[in-house]
């Protein structure tokens, strides 16, 4: 197996940091902003999206030679919608409270650009194993970004994490954080921090390369 086709650590890890769907590709921001008002909501949304990402990617990758180019988008949407419906029923079976909290956003995973984007750009061109590993990485990256956003918003906006009170009654919750503007504020700060870290890391690499050349 040549290195190009093999499954490497990067196949998985690209989604975590370098190509993180939320923080780098800025995809799927609608569910990201809408359901990240608490840690549990964002975690469930992340896991549901990861499941759809992996299973639809796997099926598309398996069928990639049979799907004619002209109808590929329609086919992808049908496949994605199938898995979303399955998730929808499963969440209802697990917990109605969670289902009510996530509201319409479970159904809206169908039109999440991350999933269609990965189907078109990756699953339709790569073998099953590689697609699944990549989808797992992308899903984990999405879940981590969403969970960080949700946890920050819940801690600041409600003074709790997973519904457990953190600061006691003297804490005055920063309500704006769980409201829609809070989502935009925290996401923009996360993007700022993310790009700052990346830029610094880039400078360090340049410097160390410069040093080694000098030596």
């Amino acid at each position, binding site marked *: 197996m040549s290195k190009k086709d093999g499954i490497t650590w990067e196949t998985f890890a690209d989604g975590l940091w370098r190509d993180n769907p939320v923080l780098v590709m800025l995809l799927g921001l609608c569910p990201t902003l809408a359901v990240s*008002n608490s840690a549990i909501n964002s975690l469930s949304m992340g896991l549901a999206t990861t499941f759809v990402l992996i299973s639809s990617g796997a099926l598309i990758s398996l*069928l990639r030679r*049979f*799907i*004619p180019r*002209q*109808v590929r988008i*329609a*086919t992808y949407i*049908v*496949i994605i*919608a*199938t*898995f979303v*419906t*399955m998730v929808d*029923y*499963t969440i*209802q*079976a697990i*917990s*109605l409270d969670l289902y*009510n909290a996530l*509201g319409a956003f479970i159904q809206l995973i169908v039109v999440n650009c991350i999933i269609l984007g990965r189907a078109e750009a990756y699953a339709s061109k790569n073998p099953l194993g590689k697609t699944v590993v990549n989808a797992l990485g992308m899903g984990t990256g999405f879940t981590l970004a969403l969970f960080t956003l949700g946890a920050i918003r819940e801690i600041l*906006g*409600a003074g709790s994490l997973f519904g457990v009170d953190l600061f006691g009654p003297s804490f005055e*919750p920063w*309500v704006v954080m*769980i*409201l829609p503007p809070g989502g935009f504020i925290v996401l923009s700060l996360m993007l700022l921090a993310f790009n700052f870290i990346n830029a610094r890391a880039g400078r360090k690499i340049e410097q160390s390369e410069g040093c080694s050349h000098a030596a």
Partner: protein
Amino acid sequence: MTGHEIRHQQTRTSPWPMFAALGGIAMLSGFLVVLVYQVTRPMIARNQRQAIMAAISRVIPGAVRNRAFVVTDSGLRPAKKGETGDIIYAGYDKDGKLAGIAARAAAQGYADMIYMLYGYDPKCRCIRGMKVLKMTETPGLGDRIKTDPAFVANFEALDARLDESGRKLAHPIVTVKHGSKRHPWEIDAISGATISSRAVGKALNASAQRLLPKIAPYIDTLRESKP
């Protein structure tokens, strides 16, 4: 690929692979969806039953069993499975005595409709509990109608007596400004969440005005029809 080449290729492609791909995948999808639906249906139904039972025992203190009835113009009759309409639940305590009656109420809140269940106690002729079933009120403000202890305390004994004619409430249930509750039929609003608080009052008043006069003549029937 240039535009000419694309056109050329399209004229050559037979439609059958497309039919086969779309048709095959649609069939596979249908199979998977039906499979998951069949597997999860009993679990979803059980969750919904549990949610209703939990809500009923929240609004009727002491209720452990319940029976559903439909309120019609000609009186009450036991509800059939899956029936819609004006459903009320008679809650019975562990000795089988009627502990209260739960009914639904709904009104437009600040963001969307607020749906709730409330418990009517025929002994004190008052509302003994209210639970929000579904809402999308602003977190931290309007959603306090569910959690604010002072607001929830409004529904420990909210007067819902009928007047002498028995066709309407003696005193309409109203939401009043925070801190100005004087009468047992008034709801003290949450300061900063007046619209949501008012919606709760409006919903309870509308539901109680409409349903309680119809239920009142049948309270004894409910007492006797143990689950």
